[in-house]
């Protein structure tokens, strides 16, 4: 019976495995293969070398990597600070309203990210909703609020809010109320309860939310392009340029591999640091 169950499990997983293999793994392998091809070739039948990686270092692409990771990090931290109280309220305080809030946030995902960002462009640009009104009322305008680093980070925070909010709410929901009350009863201040009980027990949610937003934000391109203009170039932008205007697939692949390696190792460290079962004491 148990063997049959196991076989059934494998059988059920097969379609998904095939799909993932075809759509996720295969392009990754192709990109990895292209990254070790000589410059500006469009097929894989060449002597492999690492000239593309040498080019990555020589042309100083690390600045765009640093911008992408730095802005992603700042956005993740801001998102955590914004979402913690809200997620706390959703998990522990609101009852009916949690559903309303969830639906509201999810609805925003129904509109394409680019369209929503264009909405912000119209709002923030010179002559847009804000600047235009101010000029009409007070007679003096300014240069608009677009095309700088803070507005890119604002865009990242705006777009990736659900990816922090929901895992965080899930994590907070796992904190047993009586553990909080017991800590309080044993003399801990509200701040100590937060530090000693809430944060460690919500850690799985924090890590998942943090990783999701960080990984997505680090690879994001639309925010820096639409809101940031040419203020800074992020690595994803470079990858796109290499593949399109640059017509240099090996360089684009090498850049992509570098990004994957950095983000992948961060994700692996993060995921391995949280053992969901151990944290929740569910391992028997």
């Amino acid at each position, binding site marked *: 019976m148990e063997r049959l169950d196991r076989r059934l499990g494998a059988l059920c997983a097969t379609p998904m495995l095939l799909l993932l293999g075809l759509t996720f793994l295969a392009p990754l392998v192709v990109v990895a293969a292209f990254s070790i091809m000589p410059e500006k070739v469009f097929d894989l039948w060449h002597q492999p070398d690492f000239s593309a990686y040498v080019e990555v270092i020589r042309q100083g692409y690390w600045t765009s990597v640093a911008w992408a990771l730095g802005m992603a990090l700042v956005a993740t931290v801001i998102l955590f600070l914004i979402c913690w109280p809200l997620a706390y309220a959703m998990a522990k305080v609101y009852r009916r309203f949690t559903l309303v809030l969830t639906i509201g946030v999810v609805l925003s995902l129904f509109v394409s990210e680019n369209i929503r960002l264009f909405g912000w462009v119209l709002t923030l640009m010179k002559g847009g909703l804000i600047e235009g009104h101010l000029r009409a009322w007070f007679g003096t305008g300014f240069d608009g609020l677009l095309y700088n680093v803070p507005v890119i980070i604002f865009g990242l925070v705006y777009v990736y809010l659900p990816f922090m909010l929901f895992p965080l709410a899930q994590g907070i929901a796992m904190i*047993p109320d*009586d*553990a909080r*009350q*017991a*800590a*309080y*009863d*044993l*003399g*801990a*201040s509200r701040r*100590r309860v937060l530090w*000693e*009980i809430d944060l*460690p*027990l919500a*850690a799985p949610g924090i890590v998942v939310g943090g990783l999701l937003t960080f990984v997505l934000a680090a690879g994001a391109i639309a925010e820096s392009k639409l809101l940031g203009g040419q203020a800074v170039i992020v690595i994803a932008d470079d990858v796109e340029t290499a593949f399109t205007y640059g017509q240099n697939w090996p360089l684009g692949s090498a850049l992509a591999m570098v990004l994957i390696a950095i983000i992948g190792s961060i994700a692996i460290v993060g995921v391995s640091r949280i053992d969901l079962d*151990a*944290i*929740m*004491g*569910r*391992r*028997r």
Partner: protein
Amino acid sequence: MNQNVILQIAGLYKRFGDFTALHSIDLKVHDGEFLAIVGPSGSGKTTLIRLFVGMDEPTDGTIWLRGQRIDTVPANQRPTCMVFQSLALFPHMTVGQNIEFPLKIRGMKPAERTARALELLDLLRLPRSYHGKRIHQCSGGERQRVALARALAFDPEILFFDEPLSALDYRLRKTLEKELKDLHARTGKTFVYITHSLEEAMAMSDRIAIMRAGKFEQIAPADDIYNRPVSRFVAEFMGEVNLFPLTVEESGAASAGSFTLPPRATARFGLVAGDPATLMVRPEYIGFVGAGTETEPDLSVRGRVLNEFNLGSRFQYEIEAEDGQRLTVETQRDERFGGAIGDTVTLGWAIDHCHVIRGE
């Protein structure tokens, strides 16, 4: 046990909307005593304990701890502490970290903390090696002890318990009851213990307070509560009982349906004609009257044996008296009824073993 009052409450009310959970409660807890608060679920005992430790605020009334008003003091500044029904151990910490938690909050140095935690492990008879164990590696009984150790590490003025044993199996519960009573004796702390189990309360506590619908029905030592309950509710709550409504006549005699209380008995209980009263006899005081019985019992009833239950240490019988009233009788194993189900028997007991509950 000295008679210093450590905790006093007066006129305590707690309302949730239209529902009054606690109705003008007064109580004095003596320093060093083991007080059990017993009541059926919904009687307000958990609400009461939450007010004691500060997880809720009373709607009205005052709580004093050693003469200091504490009802407005937040829970984390009260020198009291509670062992939760769920134990509320911190799952992400080791046994040692759990026990040391209140000490850490207080800012004690790590070395001192560990030393104290090890002492407490000794006190609770847990191996010192458990200091580094994870909570989920501990058994149910061990978790109880860890929760107790953590509460004792806090060194509270009063230790409150919210039915911490109710989720355990019978044997473990019995063991922990003994340990808890022993711990109370060794630490000299004041314990206030909430339970719905009469047995638990009887086994451990110095005094028992019976709660009913947000009020105390009776507060007295266990023996008094058992033998001299003030109401039918207490009598019935404290185990099996036989209750006979009495009708006191002008002659002084009182009729209980299937038997009559002689005037000397009603005089002894101070009953006069027209008083509403109920006669109570515990099942273990009633015996079978047979050929071998030498002295005539004070009171006797004839009836038919309906059923016999083997309780292990005793036998219990259900008997229907001639007027239809059901009686419960318990005997020791060596006094087991020799006859068969359906036999007609005579039951007898002494007036000394009767108790009269006044009122309706």
